[in-house]
């Protein structure tokens, strides 16, 4: 009941003209970014962060804008999967399997409509899941002391590589690299400079926004330069949409699929290290095993379109749960959203719910509203977005690069930050070549200082006894989960990844 009244207050906050306009703008931009191959949710949100800052938005409106982009990108990814057989972002990879065959049969419009409805069901249910689950998680998190927090951060890093990770050493390397970068700057507790090598610009530490935009957005530009598939034009002959209203029987047939997939996807989103790609993957595989009795999956079965879309949108909502309740994001895009919150001087975590309930509940209410907006945009107006697909990367990528530069310059006004960003862009390109995941790096630079502070506080409370870290049952439990999560991919990882990669074409390799 308490939750419902909080939610009602949230609606009071979200229902202002400014917030509604921002949600609308976010949904629109997000759908475009999701639809364009090469721009996914995480780099889409990343290049829009500066926009949120320059508009001088407060925390709630800024978050509303950016999470609408996030939800929108999840909706948009399906459009190019279905029409062009190129996933707009990684989570939409599975949608190609049945979406494109449906389009070839002349059912593109119906595939778009069914997947739009599935996206809506997935994210609508997941937002309810967020409403119900996050406050419960907060109650547990309030029991956490510094030692437990340290263990929780370790857990986040150790599981972030995800169950689909093939090389845990590379995930660990990425996390350590991110943490190492976070240490640069003046130590907050003793005031001594660390790893600054006398460079005054570094005393404040590296701005993680610079790192994020460089790693995600600029490295994408380099990938395109390397392959120069900038010439790949959207082929207009493929972009016939056709009838947009699916028959009632099709909706009835796909409803159970949507409900099951939403549940699974939400679960995959809440668990650390899984994220939306895995959400859509397991939803599809499970549906295939459950209902594919005639072998129609992969040949244009509407249920094969509904399952991954409900799954990845539900996972997007699920991933917000640990980010808001614990301050520990479970995916790339939520890590970027965490960066936004931190730059606005808001620390997510259990205290956020008691100290800034307006931010949390306003955001959640805005997500409900954004969902309805997205449904409206993505079915009747989908033709608008299919035109965007005609923009070839050779025109899109320069724009992305310049917007990234402008954004970072606009925040800090210093050429030094631009140089650091270019450095991160090159680093991101090299690391992507080596298949090193980028998300742990971001998370490391974001959480490094908090993690260290918790470590030092925990040990200081116990007068220098390092065993305090494994002193409480809660901490031991967290460590156990962390170790389990780190070891599990060594056993199942390779198999899972190879079955996910059967469908190549993954354009955006920044994972979500």
């Amino acid at each position: 009941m308490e939750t419902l009244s909080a939610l009602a207050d949230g609606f009071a906050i979200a229902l202002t003209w400014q917030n509604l306009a921002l949600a609308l703008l976010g949904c629109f931009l997000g759908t475009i970014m999701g639809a364009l191959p090469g721009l996914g949710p995480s780099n889409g949100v990343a290049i829009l962060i500066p926009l949120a800052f320059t508009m001088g938005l407060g925390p709630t409106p800024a978050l509303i804008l950016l999470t609408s982009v996030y939800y929108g990108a999840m909706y948009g990814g399906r459009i190019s999967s279905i029409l062009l057989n190129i996933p707009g972002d990684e989570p939409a990879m599975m949608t190609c399997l049945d979406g494109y065959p449906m389009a070839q049969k002349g059912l593109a419009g119906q595939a778009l409509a069914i997947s739009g409805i599935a996206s809506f069901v997935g994210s609508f249910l997941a937002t309810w899941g967020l409403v119900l689950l996050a406050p419960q998680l907060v109650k547990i998190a309030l029991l956490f002391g510094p030692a437990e927090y340290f263990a929780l951060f370790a857990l986040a890093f150790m599981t972030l590589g995800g169950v689909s990770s093939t090389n845990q050493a590379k995930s660990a390397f990425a996390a350590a690299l991110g943490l190492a970068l976070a240490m640069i700057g003046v130590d907050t507790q003793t005031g001594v400079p660390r790893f600054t090598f006398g460079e005054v610009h570094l005393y404040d530490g590296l701005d993680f926004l610079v790192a994020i935009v460089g790693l995600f957005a600029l490295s994408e530009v380099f990938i395109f330069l390397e392959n120069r598939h900038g010439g790949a034009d959207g082929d207009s002959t493929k972009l016939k949409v056709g009838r947009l209203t699916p028959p009632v029987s099709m909706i009835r047939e796909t409803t159970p699929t949507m409900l099951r997939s939403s549940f699974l996807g939400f679960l995959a989103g809440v668990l650390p290290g899984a994220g939306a790609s895995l959400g859509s993957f397991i939803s599809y595989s499970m549906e295939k095993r459950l209902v594919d009795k005639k072998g129609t999956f992969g040949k244009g079965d509407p249920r094969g379109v509904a399952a991954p879309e409900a799954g990845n949108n539900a996972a997007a909502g699920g991933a917000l749960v640990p980010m808001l309740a614990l301050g520990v994001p479970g995916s790339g895009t939520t890590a970027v959203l965490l960066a936004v919150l931190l730059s606005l001087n808001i620390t997510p975590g259990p205290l956020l719910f008691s100290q800034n309930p307006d931010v949390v509940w306003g955001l959640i209410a805005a997500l409900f509203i954004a969902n309805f907006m997205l449904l409206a945009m993505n079915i009747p107006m989908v033709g608008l977005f299919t035109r965007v697909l005609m923009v070839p990367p050779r025109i899109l990528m320069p724009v992305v690069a310049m917007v990234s530069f402008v954004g970072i310059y606009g925040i800090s006004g210093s050429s030094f930050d631009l140089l650091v960003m270019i450095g991160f862009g090159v680093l991101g390109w090299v690391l992507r070549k080596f298949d090193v995941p980028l998300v742990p790096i971001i998370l490391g630079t974001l959480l490094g200082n908090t993690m260290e502070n918790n470590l030092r506080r925990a040990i200081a409370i116990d007068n220098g006894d390092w065993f305090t870290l494994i002193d409480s049952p809660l901490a031991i439990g967290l460590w156990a989960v962390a170790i389990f999560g780190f070891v599990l991919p060594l056993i199942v990882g390779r198999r899972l990844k190879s079955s996910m990669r059967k469908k190549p074409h993954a354009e955006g390799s920044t994972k979500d």
Partner: protein
Amino acid sequence: MSDRIFGLVGALLAIGYAFAAMQIEESFLSDVVGPKAFPLIIATVLGISSLVIALRPDASPVWPPLNRLAEIFAAVVVMILYAELLPEIGFIIATAFAAAYLAWRLGSSVLELVLVGLGTSIGIYAIFHLVLGLSLARGPFGF
């Protein structure tokens, strides 16, 4: 092979990082743990994971041919020039050139790259500066 080199570079990085961590001056007002301990833990993780990468390498990635690498290098140089020249020559000119360069290298035609260059810089200027009021670099001409 690539992974072995990568692992070795990582290990050297870890050693360098640990060395730099040892150099951190302790303040007289330090807490029990001090500013060195956590960086040293990180260096250890970095070192161990690098060694594992070097000892159990994945298959080598497909490296682009030399001319593609040169392409990326040239783009980096252009971006560095952009960052350095931005305050000197102003936003619109610098951005138009940088965007046109990237469009050119991605294979646009002459007409397109002129349009992309001008469109990007004037478009961004209009949206970010005139509408949103973001202060962009001012050149000698005030834009």
